[in-house]
């Protein structure tokens, strides 16, 4: 595997930003996750690490960080990190989406702009695997990469003040699901009935960075059913271990 050059920057008094080359690709993500495993193995308490595409933001919660000292630790981890550990099990999740116009507020407009029929748009959106490159913006919001270029469309000129929970959207090279009601500027093409963030669970967010997502088209009735199943806690989205 390629070894990428990284840059290590101070980020205020209690954080450090580690950056990889400015690209979106799975090899970089794997390298980042390997680095994080190596750092966690050091067992230094109090650090939070969040990944987004080509960076890890490392925040120390116990007070100010000594940048120079930590930089040395980071460089050591980098040197000793093992490549793509097999114990890091990643999953491919199948998430159901209802593309009905009731939910897909921008579906017709998106299809027209992209010069596709709505059926073709749904077919394309459901025939790719998307990689989770980070979780941020909202609790449980996944940054997904791997959208086919034929589905690239700019954000809406005017963001909506209120986008429904579960709304599935397209914006630029990204697709994603709003895990809660929120303002939002993405083009909404459907709705996913699966609850992606539950603060009452020991693992509030069951999908991890590095996992893959595939969407599957469901009917309005199935959407309703899965939503109810989710509310009573019996709906489990289909998953396959990728490297168990």
């Amino acid at each position, binding site marked *: 595997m390629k070894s990428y050059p990284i840059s290590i920057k101070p980020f205020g008094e209690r954080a450090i930003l580690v950056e990889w080359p400015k690209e979106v690709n799975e090899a970089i993500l794997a390298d980042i996750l390997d680095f994080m495993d190596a750092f966690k193995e050091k067992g230094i308490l109090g650090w939070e690490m969040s990944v987004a595409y080509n960076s890890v933001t490392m925040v120390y919660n116990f007070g100010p960080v000594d940048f120079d000292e930590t930089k040395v630790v980071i460089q050591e981890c980098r040197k000793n990190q093992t490549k793509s550990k097999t114990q890091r099990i990643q999953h491919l999740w199948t998430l159901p989406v209802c593309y009905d116009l009731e939910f897909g507020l921008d579906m017709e407009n998106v299809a027209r702009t992209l010069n596709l029929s709505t059926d073709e748009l749904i077919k394309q959106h459901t025939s790719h695997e998307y990689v989770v490159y980070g979780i941020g913006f909202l609790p449980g919001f996944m940054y997904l990469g791997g959208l086919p270029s034929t589905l690239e469309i700019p954000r809406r000129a005017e963001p909506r003040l209120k986008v429904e929970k579960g709304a599935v959207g397209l914006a630029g090279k990204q697709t994603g699901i709003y895990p809660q009601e929120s303002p939002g500027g993405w083009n909404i093409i459907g709705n996913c009935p699966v609850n992606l963030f539950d603060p009452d669970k020991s693992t*509030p967010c069951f999908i991890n960075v590095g996992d893959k997502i595939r969407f599957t088209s469901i009917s309005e009735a199935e959407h309703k059913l899965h939503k109810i199943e989710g509310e009573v806690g019996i709906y489990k989205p289909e998953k396959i271990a990728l490297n168990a």
Partner: protein
Amino acid sequence: MLKVLKAGLYSSIQDLGRFGYRDIGVPVAGAMDSESVKKANLLLDNEENDAVMEITMTGPTLQFNYDTYISLSGAQIMATLNNEPVYNYTVIKVKEGDILSYGRLETGFRGYLAIKGGFKTGKVLNSRSHFYPVTKMGRIKDGDELPYEATQNYAPKISGVKIEELFGLGTLKVFKGPEFSLLSDTQLADIFTRTFGVSKENNRMAYQLAELITGHSHSILTSGTLPGTIQLTPAGRMIILMKDGQTTGGYPRILQLSEASISILAQKKYGDELRFKLV
């Protein structure tokens, strides 16, 4: 229980924050002016992280159902206990049935009410800080009942803390942000020589500054942000993320406020002026 007779403009329960969940997109939340919270808790021999009430501009009216001790800190909002004035940074004895109410805002923007032992509202993800929808409520509303433990006798070790009127300051100390090097000489001159006003767009998520500086066309890949991160939009708008701010962002992060300056900014309101000083 503390009965909320009137909730005020925007009152919420906050501790020092919700740590350890940034990787799943959960903002830190917590008190905007953590310096004032620490002082209020110190007076009551509380833990630094004990939950307090954060009060914005217009305070609540509250009735105590058991005896306890309280302290007020942060913004100077005139307050009375059973119509008798009470003051910030002192330990105040409260009896069952007493009513605390707030009046005019004198200085600052956010006041804090600490109670002996801290508020015992529920914890979600290891914190009592309100942040909707991680917590069911985003703020206190009329009629709420907030649990606390009764205390009859408390002899404070200290009767007052040194009041450094940090929030009277107009200069915020900043560090270079990850994208500082993208700034042009014109932008640097703008940022460090001009005075900026707090715009109407200011809340627990972010403060936007009223004046624009020269814009840019840099794009970055979405990456981590923190409370105190200053982003620069292509239009030249400076946005300062605060405690409820999102954990990632896509605008260049040009500066990062010092921890103390986050508390100072938390006490600024629409129209207040500020300057930046690089440390």
